[in-house]
């Protein structure tokens, strides 16, 4: 192998090790016992592996946070997909007065940062009596994000209208054509939108931190962030908690790696 090949490979391997190292460290630390934490170098495994940290975590209600996070992520993602598909279809395929103005209004809200909306949203939820409820937790995002609507609408417009017209002549209604013609042709963009939604919802922190306070509605992200104040700096437990938060997306990534890498690139195009 020539020098011109070895150098890029070397840099790539170093870069990938750097990208992966924090995950590796999380895994090792999570399975170390208290004595092993200080008896070994951080990058050495603690032998034999100890599950003491996990026992402590699940003893303090961490299992509940995990269940909550899965349920909320699935719930919000499904809602976002359904409502974004409906909106995108209306924008892409139907013509009605006000459509283009509304689309521009939707696009302009892409510019609104969550930090600006959090105080009004909190006060709105307070007025609705939804502070510290599941409804308050999911309501602001479950109805669809402008970004997902935008991506889906752009894709729907590339599907030839003739296909739908043919189905409609055969007597299929709007919903039927959407389900049986448009969606099966839109798999790539649906994967993209789902990926972005799952990552954003699983990782979301600021809104859950503000709107929920009782422990039975706590999400993983909030649970591990409050560790420091509730358990103190206990790296074994903190890393075990982090591992539980990080692992599910990592496993999803390993299975869908090909699609995810491709689908992220799609979102960068105009």
């Amino acid at each position: 192998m020539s020098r011109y090949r070895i150098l890029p490979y070397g840099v790539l391997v170093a870069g990938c090790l750097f990208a992966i190292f924090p995950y590796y460290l999380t895994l090792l630390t999570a399975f170390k016992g208290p004595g092993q934490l200080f008896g070994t170098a951080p990058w050495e495994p603690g032998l034999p592996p100890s599950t003491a940290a996990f026992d402590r975590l699940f003893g303090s209600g961490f299992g509940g946070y995990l269940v909550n996070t899965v349920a909320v992520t699935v719930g919000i993602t499904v809602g976002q997909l359904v409502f974004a598909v409906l909106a995108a279809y209306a924008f892409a395929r139907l013509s009605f007065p006000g459509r283009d103005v509304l689309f521009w209004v939707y696009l302009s809200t892409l510019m609104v940062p969550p930090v600006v909306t959090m105080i009004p949203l909190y006060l709105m939820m307070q007025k609705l009596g939804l502070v510290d409820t599941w409804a308050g937790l999911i309501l602001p995002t479950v109805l669809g994000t402008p970004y997902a609507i935008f991506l889906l609408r752009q894709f729907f417009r590339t599907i030839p209208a003739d296909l739908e017209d043919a189905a409609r002549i055969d007597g299929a209604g709007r919903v039927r054509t959407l389900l049986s013609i448009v969606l099966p042709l839109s798999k790539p963009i649906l994967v993209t939108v789902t990926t972005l939604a799952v990552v954003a919802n699983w990782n979301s922190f600021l809104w859950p931190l503000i709107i929920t306070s009782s422990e039975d509605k706590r999400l993983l992200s909030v649970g591990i962030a409050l560790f420091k104040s509730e358990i103190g700096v206990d790296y074994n437990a903190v890393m075990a908690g982090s591992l539980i938060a990080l692992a599910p997306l990592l496993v999803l990534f390993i299975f869908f790696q090909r699609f995810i890498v491709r689908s992220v690139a799609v979102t960068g195009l105009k």
Partner: protein
Amino acid sequence: MLRPAPRRTRRVQRRQQTLAGYALLAPSMIGVLGFLLAPVLIVIVLSLFDWKLLSTPEFIGLANYRELLNDDDVWHSFLVTLYYVLICVPGTTILSLLLALLVNRKLRGMKYFRALLVIPWMATPVAMGLVWTWIFDPGRGALNQFLGLFGLDGPAWLSSPLLAMPSVAAVHIWQFAGYNMLFFLAGLQNIPASLREASSLDGASPVAHFFAVTLPLLRPTMLFVLITNVIGSFQAFDTIFVMTEGGPGDSTEVATYLIYDEAFRKFDFGYASTISVLLFAVILVVTISQFVYFERRTTYDFS
């Protein structure tokens, strides 16, 4: 195509389509208009009120803005935010561009390298913030232990007012360099290979080609990467919340953290709203300036 329908039926069809359109849009309209657009208007109104916990809101005009101008904490937090943005954005952009040039080569196994580099993007920021806190731990952390192998005595990264911010910003760069690499990679792959051949015929070095041809052609991608990173890093919160809580002192107290603190720890909703409005204005101005700057330059289209 459908046969043209008689006029009467067409009017009925049009009405049906309008109804169908608004029915399909209804849920997302509540979401977008009610939970995104309305809050922007509400936050502006709130900024004109004195509203602390349990007190009745009182209209005070621009008094909050006058207070803000003389509030050193606010100025400090915006400078700290700017500092964070100025480390994160160039760091992420340059690193992701270099990575894209690297993974754009046709080498065996390249798709696995690309995938591995993207993984940090998916990490839960709060969890990764804690993992990096452990890496940065002055005594037992991986970084200082590693430096110790070379006889170096590493500093207390997160409790030094000087080093805390660069350390926190490094986590952002670590998390997003691989992700942004994908956009540059897509941009690079849109550039016809013939241009490279033309350059080498003219005797241009690869470096000269990069600055004269590749970089200008990547401008649309550059704009996208810059804008999304600027908007994102102006709102930094999650990692700072777990890594430094704004400290040591107030050396990492970024704007979002200050807003959170004013609103949800001190329950001063009026004043917190005023700071939010200012942050929104800053983000808007910076984003629009980037658009204007890039708009003035030529863009090329090969499609």
